[in-house]
């Protein structure tokens, strides 16, 4: 399924929601990401240390690529050519952290409302929040603090918090790794349901084959250029996530 880098260029006619082509020099290798995607679930699958999370952090604006571009819908979020680099807070990219990073001093409701309150001039959101809490099954939990929640509940809150600001892209970093296997299946379905409902591209990072099989419309695994010996010697080599979600007939 993972196509070579050139493949994206062959389907110019297909509308991409997200277009990514950047490289990032890490201390022991160079990371490359080249892919285009529409409103589907893209899974980046690879072993730990392969740079998957770094790809997400570059997309969210938490890390800066060394070169290339990132385009989301009609906006250029990053371009080394034009010097564009939209700060994370203006990217409209949701991010689900691996440990969820729920604010420990805020209740569930305050967590979910946090992003909404940052956007000024949006007074009518109050009902939306009630609806949001309801749709995530969080009304009962709205007064609780994160340390009073189970792993599955934390994830639901984190998803609600990330989606409450209506992002144009949602990034999920190893969303199921901290969960028991029996709840994993439930939450995988939940993510799939949310994806259908929100109709925005999801990019999910995992090392779990099951996650990839169940959720991924397209799975991209890293390809390495340069041999493993070079890695062991600490010499630079390139690892790239290449692929395209857009079917080329």
């Amino acid at each position, binding site marked *: 399924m993972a196509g070579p880098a050139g493949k994206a260029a062959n389907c110019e006619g297909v509308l991409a929601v997200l277009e990514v082509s950047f490289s990032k020099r890490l201390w022991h290798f160079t990371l490359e990401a080249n892919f285009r995607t529409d409103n589907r679930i893209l899974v980046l699958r690879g072993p730990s240390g392969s740079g998957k999370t770094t790809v997400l952090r570059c997309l969210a604006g938490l890390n800066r690529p060394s070169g290339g571009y990132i385009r989301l819908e009609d906006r250029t979020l990053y371009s080394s050519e034009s010097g564009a680099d939209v700060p994370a807070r203006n990217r409209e990219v949701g991010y689900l952290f691996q440990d969820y990073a729920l604010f*420990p001093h805020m209740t569930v409701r305050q967590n979910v409302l946090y992003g909404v309150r940052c956007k000024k001039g949006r007074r009518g959101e109050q009902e939306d929040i009630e609806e949001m809490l309801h749709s995530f099954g969080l009304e009962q939990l709205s007064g609780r603090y994160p340390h009073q929640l189970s792993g599955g509940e934390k994830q639901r809150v984190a998803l609600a918090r*990330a989606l409450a600001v209506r992002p144009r892209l949602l990034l999920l970093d190893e969303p199921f790794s901290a969960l028991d296997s029996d709840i994993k299946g439930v939450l995988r379905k939940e993510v799939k349901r949310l994806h259908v409902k929100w109709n925005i591209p999801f990019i999910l990072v995992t090392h779990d084959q099951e996650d990839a099989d169940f959720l991924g419309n397209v799975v991209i695994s890293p390809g390495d250029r340069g041999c493993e010996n070079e890695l062991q010697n600490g010499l630079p080599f390139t690892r790239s996530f290449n692929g395209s979600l857009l079917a080329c007939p």
Partner: protein
Amino acid sequence: MYDQYFDWRPVTLSVHVALLSVLVVACLGLPLARALARSNFPGKGLIESAITMPMVLPPSVTGYGLLLIIGKNGPLGNLGIMFTWWAAVLASTVVAFPLMYQSASAAFKGVDENFEKAARTLGAGEIRIFFTVTFPLAAQGIAAGLVMSFARALGEFGATLMVAGNIPGQTQTIPLAIYFAVESGDHEVAGVLVAVITLFSFVVIYSVNGWSRRKSS
């Protein structure tokens, strides 16, 4: 019995000096600790060491250093604050600063960066992140720093004596009053002041320990 004769001025003066010192220490120490907690540059270690020095230097050395700066021929000599209330504030500030800086710095470093990053992806600006995420999560450590530096400022003796002198009602703080009361054999005055400061110090340490106990549980 001796209440109407007892000179409480050292107590009120000490509280005023300590409060003002803590105010200065907080206004300078918090931004500095926040700025240095998340950055790394050559020379950072030197700056941090210089800030922390008064904690390990003999107070007379700190006092002598201040004397060189605000004394008659010092670069700030023409401010004319030698042997005034302000010199006591300065001495207390310099010795209390490291306590505030260290507590605040540890507290800021203890805040998981992912919370700040999460806030960033949710659309929060840096100032908003500081007041809604970083500060509340570091508040306990900051409070401990404030209380500790207040106690340290209240107890400052050596450097204060050197730059502010011992002028009753003007620069004579509690520790100075105790020293000179004992020297002149006035154990009644010394006893009361010792009791005041011992009780206060105990309450400070007890509550700071209580906070850290609750935090670790």
